[in-house]
């Protein structure tokens, strides 16, 4: 999977991967095939089709008007995923005037403007997930979701209330009861 995303980021036609032989995954995935290794006679190897998502969305602590973005948390594979994707949207807690630079690699993952197509200002955009040091997981909301997801009827009510109900993101934010005051840092 990582190889297939990386292949997408590289623009190559396919990628050879190790292992997988004997796995039932090969029976259900048309984007994985067994071929003979062209450099090693009679050795079967698995090749995969590159993964090129139409759209990738990342949520940033900060983005600038050119698309440079700081994604919370270091040690992430976002750059590879952004490059594999055909259209990259960054939603950001804050859009800043100054040009952002690649610093503090252990704290943020940097997406450079050249790999970003669109920036959207969306405070609380990671909710109910966390966003770096700004806010943590909304555990009560996640518990509510786990509860209602057990049954089709309650799940539908949840989706109507939080997904289809609000006209826009700020209406969602007020519906889940978030206020700027609650934000840390």
């Amino acid at each position: 999977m990582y190889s297939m995303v990386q292949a997408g980021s590289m623009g190559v036609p396919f990628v050879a991967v190790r292992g997988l032989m004997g796995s039932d995954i090969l029976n259900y995935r048309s984007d994985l095939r067994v071929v003979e290794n062209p450099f090693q006679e009679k050795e079967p190897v698995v090749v995969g089709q590159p993964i090129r998502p139409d759209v990738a969305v990342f949520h940033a602590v900060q983005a600038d008007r050119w698309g440079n973005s700081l994604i919370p948390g270091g040690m992430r594979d976002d750059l590879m995923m952004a490059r594999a994707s055909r259209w990259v949207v960054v939603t950001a807690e804050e859009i800043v005037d100054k040009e952002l630079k690649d610093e503090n690699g252990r704290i943020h993952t940097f997406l450079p403007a050249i790999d970003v197509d669109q920036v959207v200002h969306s405070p609380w955009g990671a909710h109910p997930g966390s966003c770096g040091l700004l806010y943590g997981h909304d555990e009560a909301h996640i518990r509510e979701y786990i509860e209602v997801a057990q049954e089709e009827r309650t799940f539908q009510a949840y989706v109507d209330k939080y997904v289809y109900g609000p006209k826009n993101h700020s209406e969602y934010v007020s519906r889940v009861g978030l206020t700027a005051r609650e934000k840390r840092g």
Partner: protein
Amino acid sequence: MAETIPEYSPEELMAVIISREARNQETIGVGAASPIPAAGSILAEQLHAPQATIIILGSEEYYPFPAGSSELHFLAQRGELDLFFLSGIQIDRRGNINLHVVGDYKAPSLRLPGAYGSAMLYYMAHRVILFRTEHTRRTFVEKVDFITAAGLTPQNVYREGGPTLMVTPKAMLAWDKEAGEWALTAILPGSSVADVQENTGFPLRMASPLAPALRPTDRELRILRTIVREKLLRIYPEFAEKKIRNF
């Protein structure tokens, strides 16, 4: 020096058993949702493997790379990972593991997140230890419902390593590469050969002689419950709090 026999949780003993399998100067990887192997690897580092390179997904302290989990994946694919750990909702006689579905793939009674790289890692890590906290007939089956990662290797396929050991709260089983099957090598306290066979869904081969029952030493438990617990609280806080006793 005689050691007293202390009380401990099955998770603590499994972590101790795993720690004894890690060797100094090895590169050891711990994947997602693997608190017992994480505890075992850190314990080994504290006891006999101070120069091991330990990579734990989800840890900052034990993550020596600039990018994400693709780093561990590609390191293993390069053939540079000595020891890795896998589990499965089902594990079978032939070393196959199932991380996909219980029941029919098209209409499963349970759908799981999936392989997460295991179909490659099971081939390319030099040694893979399987761990499972539930030792029952529904987990240890004759044949898994879905082969996520295969124990046996088709002809002419390149493979660096594969299964070596399986650790459960009842037993330790070693992979017999010649036979392509598991062999019971040791019993954990509180279980017996009959109990293990009763709770395993395939006939067990026996290693002879069977190793004596595995127990943690005082020193292992003390380090596990102090230094290791402290470090584990930052990676698996709930597991460290509930399963590793505070010394």
